[in-house]
């Protein structure tokens, strides 16, 4: 080792960055404890927020199970309602009614909604942004207003309440959800895939339908099912359109029973057994929506895996 005075070049001071490097290292290490603490605190806050979200969910489900499970029996699902005061009535007609209304609404809304999304995802004209804004406004309109709209448009014109007018109201309600979620899914399609299609001589419409739509299908289907799940629980639009029924009906042009209506109409009665039916129906409805949601997720997860 040479002594410091005779050493012409001390290896450390020769590196002009050495001092800065030392300070950076030192600061990094000094701040590390605090960074870890902050990170930990942020984690705890996030978990707390998650719990805050989950508590109401499980509280609602738990309470509904507690109150509703007592109403469940085979007859509950297979029998028609009985007149007030006579026990043993079921909600068979309401389950079928809800399935009919929702299925018809989905059939009506999907072509329109996905079609609009295909247009919005590919165009950036003023018309497109106006439509997009319109969809957002529509999403904010209270469902009861949509109910009145369907009432004036269909019920008044046709002269009577009907299943089809209820489907129409729910379709209007689902439309913005489906348009926006499908547009997002379609916009997420990698640009090079679209360009590959265009470079093969496909028309823009063909590119969207044959390349973009299949790729975005999991997202589109998820959006549709979320829309269905949302619509299945809507009550206000049905009050003005399907009105509800104590009888068996699968006709699209006649009043029809629906599960949300059963919950509403029975729930506001003073009789314990009618309230019991409302709770039982609520539980069945929650379960139905849950099955739709879980089914959608499982299905899309499988599709996504197969595309990788």
């Amino acid at each position, binding site marked *: 080792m040479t002594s410091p005075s005779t050493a012409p070049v001390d290896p450390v001071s020769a*590196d002009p*960055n050495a001092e*800065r*490097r030392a*300070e*950076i*290292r030192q*600061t*990094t*290490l*000094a*701040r*590390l404890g*605090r*960074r*870890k603490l902050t990170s930990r605190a942020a984690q705890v806050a996030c978990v707390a927020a998650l719990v805050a979200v989950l508590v109401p969910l499980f509280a609602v489900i738990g309470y509904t199970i507690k109150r509703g499970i007592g109403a469940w029996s085979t007859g509950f699902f297979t029998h028609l309602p009985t007149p007030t005061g006579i026990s043993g009535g079921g909600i068979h007609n309401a389950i079928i009614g809800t399935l009919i209304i929702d299925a018809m609404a989905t059939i009506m809304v999907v072509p329109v909604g996905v079609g609009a999304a295909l247009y919005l995802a590919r165009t950036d004209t003023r018309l497109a942004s106006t439509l997009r804004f319109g969809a957002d406004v529509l999403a904010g309109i209270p469902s009861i207003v949509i109910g009145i709209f369907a009432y004036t448009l269909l019920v008044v014109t046709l002269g009577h309440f009907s299943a089809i007018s209820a489907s129409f109201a729910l379709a209007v309600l689902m439309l913005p959800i489906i348009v926006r979620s499908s547009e997002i899914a379609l916009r997420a399609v990698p640009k090079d895939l679209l360009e590959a299609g265009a470079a093969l001589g496909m028309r823009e419409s063909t590119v969207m339908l044959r390349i973009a739509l299949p790729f975005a299908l999991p997202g589109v289907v998820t959006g549709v099912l979320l829309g269905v799940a949302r619509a299945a629980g809507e009550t206000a639009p049905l009050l003005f359109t399907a009105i509800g029924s104590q009888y068996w009906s699968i006709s699209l042009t006649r009043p029809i029973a629906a599960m949300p209506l059963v919950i509403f109409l029975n729930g506001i009665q003073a009789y314990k057994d009618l309230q019991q039916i409302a709770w039982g129906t609520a539980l069945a409805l929650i379960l139905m929506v849950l099955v739709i949601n879980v089914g959608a997720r499982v299905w899309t997860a499988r599709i996504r895996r197969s595309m990788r």
Partner: protein
Amino acid sequence: MTERPLISVRGTRALNNPDRLQARRLEDREAVAVLDDVGVSFGGVPAVGGVTLRVPQHSILALIGPSGSGKTTVLRAINRMHDRTRGSRVTGSVTLGDLDVYGPRTDPVVLRSRIGMVFQRPNPFPTMNIYQNVISGLRFAGVRRKALLDEAAESALISAGLWEEVRHRLHSPVTSLSGGQQQRVCIARALAVEPEVLLMDEPTSALDPAATLRIEQLLTELSERVSIVIVTHNMQQAARVSEYCAFLLPDEDRVGRLIEVGDTETIFTTPSDGRTDDYITGRFG
């Protein structure tokens, strides 16, 4: 004299820098990081296995090999980037200086502050301006002192060969720069934290030849102060910039294996493994 039509050996760095000829053997170089029997698997499927490799200090080590040979996978094992991929598993050991990279007490955050990384595509943070991008690593590490940040930014930008081009517009959006400039911002960003090792994953594959040349010229200077590991597809690039080369190849089970490692000149002129020779002379891959 055997025929070597595709790669000109005249370009290799070792031949151009006679002073580097001493201590050229990799075994004689001090190692800044050591990989010992490293294997990486994803979801139970092994991607690379049995990689034992010394990363020489203040030098450039190139990882070469065909697609699927696991070059990038090996690179990302060094700074524990695989931690972020679900289902990945790293076996064997990596040491950085005296730090056990995969040790139970090792914090990947601390580890990564000692290892810089530059990716295939320039990925500056688009929400930050040039200056903010360069000092972002320091800011996240908790450095507050303005003078230090300014100094570090200038020094890193000089090292990345970008200072003269951006000194008067440090606060412009980083997106206003060209791709090559953006990649140099990313290099500056990695350098600003003063890492000991710089990992580069095909850093020029998204750039044009002029920008590529700029960065290649930079690497030699950078290797004076930081140890570089670079993954490259480009044989000529490996020959031009690297001092040492590690050649990887997938085996019959498609698991990447380290075939041979040594100084670049030897690998490109007299490799000891026939497969290296085949690959380098372009007979396959």
